[in-house]
């Protein structure tokens, strides 16, 4: 770069007003991106002295995205086992049902495992979904060992050449070590039979900064391969999911946008990032 050009760049201040920067900062904080990350992205964008603040920030935010595949495992020679995990009330059971419905629509054979043997009527909830979708579900008694449900399910899936086994697990607060250990057992039991291909962590879009702790603890306990961000049909923007993806490189794979079976979509970064500014 010539000296002159460098001078011009240095003297230019960009045409974004201080008010506009403040407004963007407020909006991003309100999206649950986290104040540290927001200040980081704004500092970085400011130093580029842009004329379009949003474009500058979008570019930086896009660079945070994981380079890992956002597609779900698709092995043709054996059953693909997908576990869905997360804390209580994030929408695990509903997401399992939606994912099963999507896969069935794509012509795959799907079996469900109701390994949430803890929450009252969680098994019934999954069974109701299974009936609506027209697929089978392996269940266990209430308060029985979830690992045993998982074991019967994987046995059944391999015997009947099912393409996808989706395992719904009980909600567990990431701070309960014994419950996190239980999850490890479920996985070990399945893996004696066949590999676990995906462990999807459900992040509720309304979650605040605690989402980071949730993700880090689950990732430490098991091999999380992707995120599903649920409840994006409400007023919450789910900025925490981007913060998690940046920090952990675990890609967001799907988003949940409503209560119907069809309300699960592959994650599309552009509209999601744009929504964080609103």
């Amino acid at each position, binding site marked *: 770069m010539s000296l002159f050009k460098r001078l011009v760049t240095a003297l230019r201040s960009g045409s974004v007003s201080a008010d506009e920067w403040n407004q963007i900062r407020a909006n991003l904080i309100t999206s649950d991106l986290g104040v540290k990350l927001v200040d980081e992205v704004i500092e970085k964008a400011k130093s580029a002295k842009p004329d379009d603040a949003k474009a500058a920030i979008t570019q930086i935010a896009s660079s945070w995205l994981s380079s890992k595949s956002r597609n779900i495992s698709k092995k043709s020679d054996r059953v693909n086992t997908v576990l869905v995990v997360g804390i209580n009330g994030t929408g695990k059971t509903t997401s399992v049902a939606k994912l099963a419905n999507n896969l069935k629509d794509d012509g795959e054979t799907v079996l469900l495992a109701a390994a949430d043997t803890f929450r*009252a*009527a969680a098994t*019934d909830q999954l069974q109701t979904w299974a009936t609506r979708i027209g697929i089978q579900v392996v269940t266990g008694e209430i308060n029985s060992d979830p690992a045993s449900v998982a074991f019967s399910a994987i046995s059944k899936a391999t015997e009947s050449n099912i393409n996808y086994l989706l395992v719904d697990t009980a909600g567990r607060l990431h701070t309960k070590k014994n419950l996190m250990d239980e999850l490890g057992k479920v996985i070990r039991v399945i893996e004696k039979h066949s590999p676990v291909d995906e462990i999807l962590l459900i992040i509720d879009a309304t979650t605040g*900064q605690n989402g980071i702790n949730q993700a880090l603890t689950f990732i430490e306990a098991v091999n999380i391969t992707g995120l599903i961000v649920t409840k994006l049909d*409400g*007023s919450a923007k789910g900025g925490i999911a981007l913060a998690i993806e940046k920090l952990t490189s675990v890609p967001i794979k799907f988003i949940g946008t409503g209560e119907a079976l069809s309300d699960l979509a592959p994650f599309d970064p552009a509209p999601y990032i744009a929504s964080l500014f609103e």
Partner: protein
Amino acid sequence: MFEALGQRLGSIFSGLRGKVSDSDLIEFTAQIKTALLESDVALEVAEGFSNKVLENCKSKSDEINKSTNPASRIFEIVNTELTQVLGGSARRLQFAKTPPTVILLTGLQGAGKTSLAGKLAYYLKSQGNTPLLVASDLQRPNAVTQLQVVGDSIKVPVFAPEPGNGIGDPIDVAKAGVKFAKDKLHNFVIVDTAGRTGVDQALMQQVIDIRDSIKPDETFFVVDAMIGQDAVRTAKAFLDGVGFDAVILTKLDGDARGGAALSIVELTGKPIIFAATGEKVTDFDLFYPDRMASRILGMGDVASLSEQAKRAMPEETSKKLEDKFLKGEDFTFEDFLSQLEAMKNMGSMSKLMGLLPGAAGMKKQIENFDESELVRTRAIIESMTPTERNNPKVLNGSRRARIARGSGRAISEINSLVERFSQAQKVMKQMRGGANIPGMGALAGMSNLPKPQQINLPKKKSRSGNPAKRAIEEGI
């Protein structure tokens, strides 16, 4: 849940020493603001709160600097301000003039309404009421079944004429439920409704219609303590829509900083009335703003702890123990065992420890506390003869070997228990005359935690050299 915020504020306080200048105050309040934002407090509330603290400190700057302990004075100001934002005083349930008192539960999907309905019913029942649960969530698959299972487990009747799963009219069910309660003379009705977002007009209208048809005495907004910035928008949408009288916080047993609770209270003007702290039906209590403020500031929740202890330990047992202390009798393994029993009734050790002052710093150890150690300790004590339990001094080598065989534990474990027990005896002696927290003796059963003496038990003579720490100690 607020521990993390407490830790943050704690580290800010420990940086304050000696005279405090205006620029110190500005720096300090800016840090408070960032800490609040990281704790999910809404932007406007975080700004408002830190400004209030700044103004307050400035107007009292003479007083602060003249005081022998400026940091402790500032700590007080923050504490007062925080308690005020959190609700000022605890709100109590309002009863209907003529029963039944009708309670309507509303909130987002997954906030924990159905579990909470069970906990609230159990709470009311244990106070001698006759609650009825009404299953008006006909949306979520098997929400009705879930409520029935919960009702069965706590022996509270559930009014569920419709199967749910999209079948039936929630307004009709609610109306019929209240009528049923009147006919059968239930004095409380708890109506569980479907989760809904603040932006879904049709569903908001539905809950408004439920409200209009049953005219609840109390409408509660149930909210997950982990919610982020959206808490404010959602709470306002519910307030403008169905309206609510108070807030119930759920999932407080997680590690969320819970700042959103602060924002909801500040921006809606509605107090938090109850808090749910775990998956068991007993994990439920009234919400105490002053205690929570102390907890935010890392001062622990001693009041909650001793209340829980009171509930768990029968009056008789605790009286007997107290008498023993006063008479100067020795604390025996028998007492230890009855305390272990009480600890079991109080809930998990890790939760209890979280309520202790200064425990915020031991979070990791607390989480990994091995509950089964209590079981092992019990096994050892139960393998002792009554003589041994009442007079541990007789425990010679051969007796210890027999106990080891009887309990299936190694002799080294017996030795270390006896060693820790004699420490506990000493603590009990020190506590004599001071505040007595029943159940504390069992702390000695934990080898990986600081000894009881090191936890801020109210002791007269020890004053910390660190002003911030001292402020915490003296603030109790």
